[in-house]
Each structure stands twice: as C-alpha cells, then as structure tokens.
C-alpha cells in the first residue's frame, strides 16, 4: 500500500507542476460560471417577457394571467454540466495520456520497474494519484457551481441543493475517471504515444459527441426549429400517444444513446439536478428509480476501465526506450 501511495504522491507532484493542468481546470471552471451567467440572463429575459405580457393582458382588461416562469436554481447548471460532459472528458483524456506519455518520453520507466513490485502497481499508483486530483477538482467544481448559482443566479442554496450538487460531483468523478483510466490503458499498451493520442481523440469524439449527436438528431422533435410537435400544435399527452406507435425507432435511438457513457452521465446528472423536467422538484428516491440503470451502467463502465488500466500494467515494458 505504501508503494502505491508513493507512486500516487509522485503523480500528484507532477500534476501540481504541470501548468497545462492548471489552465485547463481553470477553463472548465470559467465555462461553468459563464453558462450560469447565460442561463441567469436568459431567465431574466423570460421574466421580462412575462411581465410585459402580463401588463399587456391587464391593459386589455382580461383578468386571466398566465403562470409566471419558475426558477429552479440547479437548472441554471445545465450548460455547466454539459461542459463537464464534453470538456471534462477531454481534459481527463489529456491528463491520463500525459501521465503515461511522459514516462515514455523521459525514459524513466526502467527506474520505476527496478523498484516497484510490478507494472500493475505503477499503473495503480497513477490511477490513484489522478483519482485524488479529480476528486479535488470535482469538489472545486461543486463549490464553483453552487457559488455561481447563488451569486449570479441570486438563488437561495439550501441543504437540499448542496446534497444534490455533491451527488452530481460524485457522478462527475466517476465519469472523468472512466476517461482517465481509458487514457492510461490505451497509452500504455500502444508502442508509441502519438497513435495513442489520436486513438483517444477519436474515442472522445465518438463517445462524447457523435453518438449523443446521432441520438439527438434522430429525435423526431428536433427536426424543425422550436420542435416538431410544437410546430404541429400537438399537446404533450398526444405526443406520447403518437410516439407509442414508433417504439422500435425510439428504442433503437435509446440503445444508441446508452451505449455512450457520456449520455449515461448526462441522464444521471440532469435527473439529480432536476434539469430534465420529469425530475424537477422530485425526491432522490424518485431520481434513483428513474436512473438506477444508468448509474449501474456508468459505474460498471468505469470499474471496467479501472481493470483495463491496471491490467495494462502487464504491458508496461512498451514504455521502455528500448522497446
């Protein structure tokens, strides 16, 4: 265990000295804050439109006023969570790749191999070290998210919001650790670092952007600006009744979506924070009922990635200069 901790501490030291890591983490924080600013401005614009509409209704002498738009503070984090989904995964890939590629570039793996018990413990140490880094970053993002919602969104943050945000932070940790572990594994088993980096970039594109994009673009409601059912003036219950006739198309689309760990992470986070309307204002038990399959899927994928990363330690000789 102490060997693992020594290797992990050395990883932490490397990360602390790496300016790129600090820059990308700051960029992620800024992107979250920025998206809360945009969401808050958008909500204020909606409120202004609503007030203008109410004034118009009153002036026309009608007594019926429509319901005011309601602010659910954590919904302001939708854009921020999407940034974690897209950029967080990219940065995790870069961090995991860099951790292994630097050993190859510096030719230091021989020194490690003559001291550590095995290649698997070297990879285990790296995984532990980066796990600690991401735990700290996830916690920092939770704080930044809550603070920006409270300050910019002028919303009250209670125990309820803190608890949900902490759970979302834990989900983010599981998600970025999936990518970190995949990057560690792939960079270790490939003979040269450059193809590994390209392979990881392609995997990131496919899993994070392309698969969810295909799912999204095949959504019948996304075919016209403003939504197909809106354009046809169809109410929600009727929409569901119509879609019931197209279950094979919809289940194909769903299968495609859940094959991406990013989509699993997105579904869990959106449910936890009440971003998806179905879960707005609902209890955690309700959220669990709706998303436990996605949670099992995401955690299972991350555990499998951990096993791959540690197993890749058997191939650690590929990092030697003479290899």
């Amino acid at each position, binding site marked *: 265990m102490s060997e693992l901790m020594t290797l992990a501490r050395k990883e932490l030291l490397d990360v602390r000295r790496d300016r790129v890591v600090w820059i990308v983490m700051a960029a992620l924080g800024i992107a979250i804050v920025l998206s809360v600013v945009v969401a808050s401005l958008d909500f204020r614009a909606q409120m202004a439109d609503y007030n203008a509409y109410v004034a118009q209704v009153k002036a026309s002498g009608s007594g019926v006023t429509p319901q005011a738009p309601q602010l659910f503070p954590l919904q302001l984090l939708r854009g921020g969570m*999407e940034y974690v989904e897209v950029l967080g995964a990219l940065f995790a890939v870069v961090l995991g790749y860099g951790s292994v590629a630097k050993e190859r570039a510096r030719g230091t793996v021989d020194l490690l191999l003559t001291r550590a018990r095995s290649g698997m413990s070297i990879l285990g140490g790296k995984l532990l070290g980066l796990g600690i880094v991401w735990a700290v970053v996830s916690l920092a993002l939770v704080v930044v998210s809550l603070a920006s919602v409270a300050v910019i969104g002028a919303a009250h943050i209670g125990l309820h919001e803190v608890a949900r945000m902490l759970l979302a932070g834990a989900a983010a940790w599981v998600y970025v650790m999936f990518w970190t572990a995949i990057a560690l594994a792939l960079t270790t088993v490939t003979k040269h670092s450059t193809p590994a980096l390209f392979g990881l*970039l392609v995997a990131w594109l496919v899993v994070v952007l392309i698969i969810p994009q295909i799912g999204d*673009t095949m959504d019948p409601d996304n075919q016209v600006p403003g939504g*197909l059912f809106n354009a046809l003036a169809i109410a929600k219950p009727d929409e569901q009744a119509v879609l019931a006739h*197209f279950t094979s198309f919809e289940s194909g689309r769903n299968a495609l979506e859940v094959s991406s760990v990013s989509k699993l992470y997105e579904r869990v986070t959106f449910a936890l924070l009440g971003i998806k309307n179905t879960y707005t204002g609902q209890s955690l038990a309700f959220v669990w009922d709706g998303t436990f399959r996605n949670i099992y899927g995401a955690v299972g994928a991350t555990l499998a990635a951990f096993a791959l990363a540690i197993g890749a330690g058997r191939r650690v000789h590929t990092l030697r200069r003479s290899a």
Partner: protein
Amino acid sequence: MSGVLTAARHELLTSARAKSPYMLVAAFLGMVAASTFIGWRTTVTVSAIYDRVVADGLTTQPNPFTDVSALYYVRNTVIYVLLIGSLMAAALGVQSALRDRKASTAALVLTRPVSERAVRAGRLLGIGAILAILVVVTSVVTWVSVGAIVGHALTATQTLEVASFGALTWVLLMGFAAVGVASGMVFPRERTALLAPVVLWAVIAFVIPQLGTAARPVSLLNPVPLPAQGSGAFGWLSQIMAPFSITEHFKTASAALLESPYTGSAVASAAVVALFTLIALAAALVVRAARIEGGSHE
C-alpha cells in the same frame, strides 16, 4: 517558389506515411457516408409520425417535410464536418508543424537556402491538397448515396450545390489546419499543441454561440442553425459575438447550399468563414516558432 512546391510534395508524402491521423480520417469519411442514411431514416420516420398525427386528427398544419429536397438528407454531414473534419484538419496541421521537432530534422531544413516561411507555406499547400482530396471523396460519396436513396441522379443544380458545399467545407478545414500549424509552432509539446486547437474549437463551437443565443452547448450539435436572440442582454451579446461564431456561420451557409431552412444572410456567413480561414492562414505563416533546437545548449 520551388522551395514551396518541394515542401508541399514532402508534406503529402510524410502525411500519407504517418498512420496516426488515419483514424480521424476514417472516422470523418465513415460518418459522412453514414450521415445520408441517418438523415433519410429520420425523415422517413418523421413523415410516418406526421401521417399518424393527421390520421388521428391531431393537426391541420401542413407537413413540414413535404417537398423536402433530396439534399436535406445530408444535413448531418454539416455537423460531421464541424465535429470531426475540423479536428482532423487541426490534427494534420499540428503534426505538420511538429514533424521537424519530433524527428529532430529542424537543423537540416533550416540550414538550406530557403526561408522557413516558404517551407511553412509549402506545407500548408500540401495540407490543402490532402484536404481537397478528402473533400472530393466525401462529395462523391454524398452524391452517390443521396442518388441511391432517392432512386435517381441529382440534378445539375443539386450537383453544383454539393460541389459548393465541398468548397465551403475545404475553406473551413483549411482554417482549422492553419490553427493547428500555428499551435504546433507555438507549443512544442504534442499534448499541448493538440489540446490548444481543440479548446479553441470548443470555444468557437459552444461558448461563443451560447453567449449569443442562450443555447445549451450540446444543442449546438444540431444541424439546424440557431437564430440569434434579439432581446435584452442577448441582443448586444449576439451582435458582438456574431463575427466569432464561425461554426454557426458555417451551418447557415451550408443550410443555404443544401436547401435546408436557415435565417440570416448565407453570403455573409460564407464570407465570415472565409475571413476566419484567411486570418488563421496568416497567423500560421507569421507566428514565431518556439525554439526549435532542443536539448542542452553548449
């Protein structure tokens, strides 16, 4: 001039021999080929949904997909150009800029009687040729696959539109390739050199349009261009951000060429994309390279 052509030929040869970017090229070509099918399958389903809605007497609105153009099937290609194509181009640019550093051949090139800028221009020309080949392949794939789905060859106008979309794609990809070259010049480490254009791409594709339209980042991956918000803070924000919203402009200009609905001026949008590429090319040519001589200096 001969130095430029020599460097261009060398770029073609070395890029063809380097296997790493092949994965991105394969992803790009594969998704472009698949996009027609995805577009067709979705359109067929949506039309069936409309028929069901009408049969159930739920709407009296006209079918938004009646008389939809054959080119509407390829609208997803626009997104794959933005998603995969631009990153592929940036990666090619980075690899080109870092090649001498990685192979430690910079001293051999720089002690030849040609200017470093001429070599850089030649390499950009070489990348341009590679991208042109890829664009021609994707245009042919698009033309054939749409023809196969609709059951007849595309008309002359539609063929011209596909070709124009190819040209616009090439212009955008050259811009990102130039960004990659500039990044490779400034950042000597491969990881940082590749990360920088990806982050810039994310800012252009997600952050800037989000500021102008209040859209959520991932929704920007829908091929339907988003209208700018006219009211409140978004009014002036979208005005300021409009010139930098390169990917949204590309979507608008592409929508016009592929007979899809769009708002705004397609010509102005195409001009913004071209301007971005010109600026990126200029940057790639003038940016000062980080120290090329590695190792200790006696």
